[in-house]
């Protein structure tokens, strides 16, 4: 049978068959079309965080964005543990942007900084415990017994006296009448779910293709919007053809918006043809001579500027003067792009009385505020639907594409889906800032490290994104991992030189630690070498007050076979870094091809101490992914600039790591039962310095610039 589907017919059909007269909502598991009355069927909703329906299903509302870090599962585990639910009962719903869903630590709704479990843990524990207490009370009343004669297990309440039991689902109506306890008792005894590698809730939908990402949103009657944006920073339109696009079949409107010229059409291909037909001519922007070379030379020349002092212990100048041995090194690291697999996108529908935004965002509060501003509506008239995120890495903290979709929808009165091409995504990123640093270190005559002076030059992320976090002119990201380095050195000075360029910079998975871990952990190796000491032993000697980190380094070294003879041509390098509340140490096993300069990373052994662990397999997955992303930046990634804008455009000229370049990875979780640490970001920073340190050992060359491409290796080998 043949099924005709022009775009409109298809929509009519699918909607008609569902008998739709109301709203289309998106759940983590796909489009869900529901009648508003359905909401009334849910009798037990003890808090905004969960609801239990009479069919014995438990829905956890998650206020954090699922971008691959497994947060839908981890947060649900915390609720289910305290609730004493059967894991099979659990489903997840993405929470809308509302005050009650704000992160209790931040006071806003968003996902980042590897904080989700850390910030939500106590709240969700309480929510689960409160619901359990109410269910127990309901059962006790039903049976006419004391609450102490009841116990819970796997989603049921059991009468200890006669052994009868009743499911949570059957208790919902009665439980809903109970007062919500404000100080519920937490469960005692050992955990059933926490600490186990429960299979992730989002994986089945991601395997069968039904998971709805922002890119996949389809709204009745929607238009496709695409935006012509300046090719160089700050460029202004000289002219464009308003008429030609309108001759294209399916074209609706050409709308100038804040960020460029928008074209919208019935189909995505018509929208793109329309954009081409604009034949926009731009001026050359605010700094047409800006290119990779000029940005790099500025970064290096700023090293001679005086910086703001972020830390000053002892007297570095004196210590450097009286050193038996001094080492000085300059490092230079590139701008990086996020390369989220799912390009930036947003679908918005602004009406007179309501506004809906479907978006893969890490920043629900930012989206809501923007929607209020553009639509002129109040918060309770706006629905922010967070879809799955095809990675986030900090890029989706920004709301640039949301602004585009809202403005176009407002101008056209239609639902508008704005999807970026890879080229648009790469050229309009908020990049990990390029940066440079000069480090000086001093050894005394016994080879002890007595001084460390570290000046970093880097654009400020926080100055734009969260100016309140900049204290005394110092961007916390700029000095993170240097200013708080864990090595005990008597004389330390850390300076920050801010450099402003036209290139917008933003949060990139593990933020300042991406570059500062590389320079600190490379330079500590340089100092170990200058002292003629083993890099591991040298590090341990500087960590006498930090048994936790010492144990981690010893673990990773032992697992990697540190000190044993590696295979011919191979060498090991080690690095550690503390960020987002967790310690990670890694050893890379590397060989260097002296002819073509190719670095081969054979193995990476990783040890992580993130305090206590919710889901060990999730921790492992985040370490694996962090190592691969970190290795990608170590070996391949660098944004190129030209003519006052971005030259890199797609995956052929901004390459990321592939399977054939991926080493064997081993992850060891060191359980310390310390405070919960973050897990999304800390896996990234140590791998680049571990590789650079191994390359030094293998080939005798110290690579201080990233990425470590074959060309840089060959050139360093030539210099000797």
């Amino acid at each position, binding site marked *: 049978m043949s099924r*005709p589907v022009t775009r409109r017919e298809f929509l009519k059909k699918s909607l008609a068959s569902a008998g739709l007269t109301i709203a289309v909502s998106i759940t983590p598991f796909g489009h869900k079309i529901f009648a508003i009355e359905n909401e009334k069927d849910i009798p037990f909703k003890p808090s905004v965080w969960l609801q239990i329906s009479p069919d014995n299903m438990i829905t956890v509302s998650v206020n954090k964005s699922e*971008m691959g870090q497994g947060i839908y599962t981890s947060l649900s585990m915390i609720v289910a543990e305290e609730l004493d639910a059967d894991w099979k009962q659990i489903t997840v719903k993405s929470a809308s942007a509302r005050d009650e869903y704000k992160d209790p630590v931040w006071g806003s709704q968003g996902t980042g900084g590897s904080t989700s479990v850390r910030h939500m843990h106590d709240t969700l524990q309480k929510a689960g415990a409160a619901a359990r207490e109410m269910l127990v009370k309901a059962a006790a009343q039903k049976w006419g017994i004391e609450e102490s004669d009841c116990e819970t297990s796997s989603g049921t309440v059991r009468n200890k006296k006669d052994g009868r039991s009743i499911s949570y689902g059957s208790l919902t109506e009665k439980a809903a009448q109970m007062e919500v306890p404000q100080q519920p008792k937490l469960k005692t005894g050992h955990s059933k779910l926490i600490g186990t590698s429960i299979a992730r809730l989002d994986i089945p939908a991601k395997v*069968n*293709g039904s998971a709805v990402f922002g890119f996949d949103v389809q709204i009745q009657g929607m238009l496709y919007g695409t935006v012509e944006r300046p090719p160089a920073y700050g460029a202004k339109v000289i002219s464009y053809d308003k008429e030609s696009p309108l001759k294209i079949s399916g074209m609706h409107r050409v709308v100038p918006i804040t960020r460029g010229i928008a074209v919208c059409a019935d189909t995505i291909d018509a929208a793109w043809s329309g954009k081409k037909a604009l034949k926009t001519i731009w001026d050359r922007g605010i700094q047409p001579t800006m290119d990779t070379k000029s940005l790099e030379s500025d970064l290096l020349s700023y090293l001679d500027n005086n910086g703001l002092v972020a830390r000053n212990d002892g007297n570095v100048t004196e210590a450097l003067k009286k050193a038996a041995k001094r080492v000085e090194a300059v490092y230079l690291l590139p701008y990086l792009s996020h390369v989220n697999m*799912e390009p930036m996108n947003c679908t918005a529908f602004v009406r007179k009385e309501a506004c809906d935004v479907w978006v893969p965002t890490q920043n629900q509060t930012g989206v809501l505020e923007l929607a209020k501003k553009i639509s002129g509506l109040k918060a309770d008239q706006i629905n922010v639907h967070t879809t799955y995120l095809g990675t986030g890495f900090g890029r989706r903290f920004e709301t640039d594409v949301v602004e585009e979709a809202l403005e176009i929808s407002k101008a056209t009165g239609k639902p508008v889906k704005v999807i970026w091409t*890879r080229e648009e995504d790469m050229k309009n990123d908020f990049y990990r800032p390029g940066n440079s640093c000069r480090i000086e270190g001093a050894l005394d005559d016994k080879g002890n490290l007595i001084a460390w002076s570290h000046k970093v030059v880097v654009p400020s992320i926080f100055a734009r994104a969260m100016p309140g976090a900049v204290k005394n002119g110092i961007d916390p990201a700029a000095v993170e991992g240097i200013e708080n380095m864990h090595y005990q050195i008597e004389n330390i000075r850390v300076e920050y030189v801010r450099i402003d360029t036209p290139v917008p910079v933003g949060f990139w998975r593990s933020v300042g630690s991406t570059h500062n871990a590389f320079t600190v952990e490379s330079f500590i190796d340089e100092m170990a070498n200058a002292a003629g000491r083993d890099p591991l032993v040298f590090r341990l000697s500087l960590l006498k007050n930090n048994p936790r980190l010492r144990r981690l380094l010893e673990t990773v070294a032992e697992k990697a076979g540190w000190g044993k003879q590696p295979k011919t041509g191979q060498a090991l390098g080690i690095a550690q870094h503390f960020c987002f509340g967790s310690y990670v140490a890694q050893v890379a096993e590397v060989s260097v091809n002296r002819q073509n300069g190719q670095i081969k990373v054979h193995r990476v052994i990783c040890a992580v101490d993130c305090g206590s662990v919710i889901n060990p397999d999730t921790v492992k*997955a985040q370490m694996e992914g962090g190592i691969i992303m970190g290795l990608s930046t170590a070996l391949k990634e660098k944004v190129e600039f030209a003519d006052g804008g971005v030259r890199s455009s797609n995956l052929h000229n901004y390459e990321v790591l592939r399977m054939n370049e991926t080493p064997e990875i081993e992850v060891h979780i060191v359980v310390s039962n310390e405070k919960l640490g973050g897990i999304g970001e800390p896996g990234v920073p140590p791998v680049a310095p571990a590789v650079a340190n191994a390359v030094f050992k293998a080939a005798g060359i110290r690579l201080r610039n990233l990425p470590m491409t074959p060309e840089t290796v060959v050139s360093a080998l030539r210099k000797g």
Partner: protein
Amino acid sequence: MIKLTVNEEEYKVDVLPGVPLLWVIREYLKLTGTKYVCGLGLCGSCTVHIDGKAVRSCQVPVNDAVGKKITTIEGIPEDHPVKQAWIKEQVPQCGYCQPGQIMEAMAFLSEKKNPTEKEIINHMSGNLCRCGTYPRIKLAIKTAAQKGGRQ
């Protein structure tokens, strides 16, 4: 009107013949499991099967797919050993590239029943994953192969 056969269903679509198959599948037929990442055939996220072969749908003008048997992730049965292996090994993180990875792996295993590690790596290196699920993809392919991955 262009006639397409996708997942054993016939569709008539009002679309220009040069539009890449990817966009027709996603935005006209609303089969959104097939993903866009690069549009240049460099990442493999848009991989579908055309007459049983893994193809980058962003590189195929829709007209070239007329009269052929197109299969997308939505057309793969839930109990397929490759899908099952992907769940068993907990492969996806963000999940965006995974339909493409699965379609590529399925076509690969239908030609190579018991691939070596090296063959898996060589074959799968055309499919990008930014989350870094490569070790688990490798594992899942081995798991599926052991189960005697069927076509």
